[in-house]
């Protein structure tokens, strides 16, 4: 079986699954529906593995030509190279785990088959996104995942009390993504105008062949691309949709809003690295925005009381971290963090999902506590996840984060300092979350406590697998300085696609420095951990009510009031404009103006009629007047004409 065919099957399997479930799902038993969907994704994962092992060089599969226009063609091509296969593995791997998890999690939901249809569709469009060999196919996937995310966020639209909120959140996500998409479109247009193609490889060739030609346009293109990235990957200014997107079922949050879709922005940037390399300004902008996002999100996360909201903001913050890496040109490092983040954030989300499942859909951490005994597996795995994200030594998060920090240190100590603050805050809110949920005494009342239970296997197995991954994930890209020959395996693997780069390899800095950095990081993690333990377990401190918060805490718990600001700056004016235009201009000027005109014409009939007085003498008089007029016309004309 040729590579091409394998690749196409890999892509089409989830689509087939979606089709089957979508059409027949209603009549099939839930078990079959769920396992079918899971199998589809898992099989594509296996195919992905085979392709991964057999990978040698970049291969492009031409499916068909969508349309041929005057000066450009739109092709449905797919590209198989290290980057795409890497992303594919993440998507299908994590995806199949989460499918498995959902089988248990959604078991009580009446929209079961719909859910799996959407999930498979999502996987399909995500695969389009990463496997497409040109920006056109990428855009298909890009919008496709947007739609699936819309459908899945608003999945519980007819929920009694939260239904409206869910659908509104879905709408917000879609529209904000659309703004980003517009940016992507403009990037595509500019590429079409300057390169007359959208193929990654060809553009890459052109650019690397003669960089000096394209420096100017590259800046514009990359800015647009980055706008798109901010939309999809929830960076400032378009990040507010992601926390709201937590309205979706938890597996969705795990798959789409933590592991895969939100990293599409990073994928896009890495894909177009050859352009970004020509646009230092854009890279600086990315760096700044990345830093700002990671700090802001981490700050907000510190005082959130919804378990998923905390994780959401932590996701935003981690994504910010990845963009920092991109801004510094460390593409593989960013991808490394994408990978580890996929592991532990998926783990955390699923863990929270299992918690919520156990707490029968209660998400407020103020009502939890002491779940460690009630849900042991969840507890252990969640702890691992927490440690991983907090940068506990030798867990996956530790290495990936450390790489980024090392680069930051190389570029400038200030950046490093700010990032350290963010890292510290990350540790703080994560441990706060962990201790409030799993330690101390149960605050949810006896009735709730009575039927808190550990989740079934279908949910715990993924947890365990992910836990293992988040522990050992770091092996993929060990820092070369410490483990000399084993180091940077992943970076080397991905070099072929992140070609033409001059990224600072941590080798260049001497060993002591990097070891010192590692020590600082782990020291921070450990100290925060102990501090949090004292505060939340020994002192039994619970999240405060809004009343007794100080200004900073208020700011944090109210998300810096960003939603409100957007409302007043953007949304309200447009709506006002809409109403005013409709009522004033449309009605008054256009409609009534014309109506007035017509009625005036009609009324003028009354005046013309008056001439017809009905008196014979007046008729005769006017006739004579007419003749006299004629004759005077003649006299005037004959005197003045010739």
């Amino acid at each position, binding site marked *: 079986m040729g590579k091409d065919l394998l690749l196409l099957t890999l892509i089409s399997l989830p689509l087939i699954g979606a089709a089957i479930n979508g059409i027949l799902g209603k009549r099939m038993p839930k078990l079959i529906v769920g396992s079918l969907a899971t199998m589809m994704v898992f099989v594509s994962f296996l195919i992905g593995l085979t392709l991964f092992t057999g990978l040698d060089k970049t291969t492009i599969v031409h499916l068909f030509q969508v349309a041929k226009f005057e000066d450009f063609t739109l092709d449905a091509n797919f590209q198989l190279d290290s980057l795409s296969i890497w992303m594919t593995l993440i998507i299908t791997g994590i995806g199949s785990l989460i499918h498995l998890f959902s089988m248990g999690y959604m078991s009580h939901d009446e929209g079961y088959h719909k859910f799996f249809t959407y999930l498979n569709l999502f996987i399909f469009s995500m695969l389009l996104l990463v496997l497409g060999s040109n920006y056109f196919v990428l855009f298909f996937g890009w919008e496709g995942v947007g739609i699936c995310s819309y459908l899945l966020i608003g999945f519980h639209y007819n929920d009694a009390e939260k239904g409206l909120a869910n659908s509104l959140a879905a709408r917000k996500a879609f529209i904000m993504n659309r703004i980003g998409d517009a940016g992507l479109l403009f990037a595509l247009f500019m590429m079409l105008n300057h390169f007359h193609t959208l193929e990654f490889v060809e553009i890459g060739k052109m650019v690397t062949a003669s960089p000096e030609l394209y420096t100017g346009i590259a800046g514009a293109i990359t800015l647009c691309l980055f706008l798109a990235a901010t939309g999809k990957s929830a960076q400032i200014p378009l990040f507010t949709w992601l926390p709201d997107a937590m309205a979706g079922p938890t597996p969705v949050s795990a798959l789409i809003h933590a592991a895969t879709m939100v990293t599409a922005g990073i994928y896009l940037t890495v894909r177009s690295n050859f352009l970004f390399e020509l646009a230092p300004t854009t890279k600086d902008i990315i760096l700044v925005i990345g830093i700002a996002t990671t700090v802001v999100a981490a700050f907000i996360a510190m005082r959130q009381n919804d378990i998923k909201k905390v994780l959401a903001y932590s996701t935003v913050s981690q994504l910010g971290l990845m963009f920092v890496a991109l801004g510094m040109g460390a593409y593989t490092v960013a991808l490394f963090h994408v990978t580890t983040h996929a592991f532990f954030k998926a783990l955390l989300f699923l863990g929270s999902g299992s918690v919520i499942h156990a707490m029968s859909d209660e998400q407020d951490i103020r009502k939890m506590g002491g779940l460690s005994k009630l849900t042991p597996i969840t507890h252990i795995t969640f702890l691992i996840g927490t440690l991983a994200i907090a940068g506990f030594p030798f867990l996956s998060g530790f290495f990936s984060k450390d790489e980024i920090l090392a680069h930051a240190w190389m570029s400038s100590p200030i950046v490093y300092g700010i990032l350290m603050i963010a890292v510290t805050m990350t540790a703080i809110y994560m441990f706060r979350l962990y201790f409030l949920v799993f330690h101390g005494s149960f605050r949810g009342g006896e009735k709730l406590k009575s039927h808190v239970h550990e989740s079934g296997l279908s949910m715990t197995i993924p947890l365990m697998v992910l836990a293992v991954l988040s522990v050992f994930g770091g092996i993929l890209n060990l820092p070369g300085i410490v483990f000399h020959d084993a180091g940077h395996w992943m970076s080397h693997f991905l070099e072929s696609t992140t070609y033409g780069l001059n990224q600072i390899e941590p080798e260049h800095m001497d060993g002591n420095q990097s070891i010192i950095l590692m020590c600082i990081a782990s020291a921070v993690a450990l100290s925060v951990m102990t501090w949090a333990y004292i505060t939340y377990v020994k002192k039994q401190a619970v999240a405060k009510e809004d009343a007794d918060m100080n200004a900073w805490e208020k700011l944090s718990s109210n998300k810096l009031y960003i939603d409100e600001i957007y409302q007043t700056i953007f949304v309200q004016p447009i709506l006002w404009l809409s109403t005013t235009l409709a009522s004033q201009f449309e009605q008054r000027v256009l409609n009534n103006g014309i109506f007035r005109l017509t009625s005036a014409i009609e009324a003028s*009939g009354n005046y013309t009629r008056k001439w017809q007085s009905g008196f*014979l003498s007046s008729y005769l008089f006017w006739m004579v007047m007419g003749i006299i007029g004629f004759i005077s016309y003649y006299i005037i004309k004959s005197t003045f004409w010739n």
Partner: protein
Amino acid sequence: MDALIIIFITGLIGLFVGMLKNSRLTLAVISVGLIAGFLSMYYMNDYQSIFQSYQGLQFSRTQHMFALLAIGLTFVSVLLGYTYFKEDEEHTSDYYGLMLFSLTGALCLIGFSNLFMFFLGLEILSIPIYVLVGIQKGNSLSSEASVKYFFTGSFATAIMLFGIALVYGSTGSFEMNEIQMALDMGMSHSPMLNIGVLMMMAAFLFKVGAVPFHFWGPDVYQGSSNAVMAYMASVVKLAALFAFVHFFNFTFHSVTPFVAGLILFAIVVSLFLGYLSALKQTSFRRMMAYSSIANTGFALFAVLNQQYGEASLWIFMIGYACSTIALVTINMIVEKETDNIANWKGIGYSNPLIGITLVISLLSLSGIPPFTGFFGKYLLLSSAFTNYLPVVILAIIASLVGAYLYLRLMVLALSKEGEGNKLKMNLTQIIVLILCLGGILGGWLVLLI
């Protein structure tokens, strides 16, 4: 030539047959006579007529067409009149007789080749109409209409005669072609001639009912009966317009540019005054009168069109006359004691024939293709396009007002509230409607011959 005689004699016979007080019989006789006249006119050139030698009446191809059209329209009006006339049996024949006499006049007015025939035709055309208008004896409106028409009409005749006299005085002949030659030789700008021409033009404008000599129109149309009004709006207008165009396209063609300004003025004012005043009318016939004033405004473009004037006029008139007659017929069918437009509410909805006819005739009047009305307007406007563009644009605007007028009537007549009230029509009316429909749909095909 023989057609005139046949028609005239038929009129006389009709009067005698009328004594039998059998309106069917009378109608039959008259129809036979008209058909005979039509045929003899149609085959005019195919046989030796004893009157061939007479020079006073010459039917060129165009005039031939006009004559046929006039006879045809008269036939339709006769049919249309039947239902109405047969009410008072003893006078049925009078109507027909008068109509036919007037048609004789119309034919003279179409075929004239010297001023004698022209003048006689004009009078023979008009005098029966004076009577026809006032023939509803008991009806004070009718008598008022006839009084107004008579006095304005004879006043116009006097003016026309004075004009003729002056023209004769400055050219020294009553023969059209001689007058033309005389003018071409360059006497065209002698004051006497110009004033004569202007006076004739005034009289013509009166006959065709254009501003500022239109005043008789609305009153007379409203006062007279449907059949007579249909006849006036079709045949009389046709004959008068033809004579007008004939004069100013051939005999006076060297003077025409000189008076063009006045004609344009008449056109514009007629268009707007006609349509605007029509908007607010409640009496149907009065509204049609104003619409006819406006349509005259269109027709007058033919006067300025040396080349195709008469042909365009023919197309335009068949469209206009057929639509008008059709509408009048419908009005006759729906008319209660008054001819208030409110009677029209919903008649078109459940009477398919009426509905289709009125929709098509109204659309044709508003100048929407592919109906004859459109092609008439199109020809007239397109010929005037280069020289008189501003006037053409004004005419377009005016026709928009007209479209609004007709559209209102259409909407009123097609209203769903007429669900289920079937109007009863007798055979003649159905025939009339179908003939008119044919005229509107097929009239323009003459272009392709």
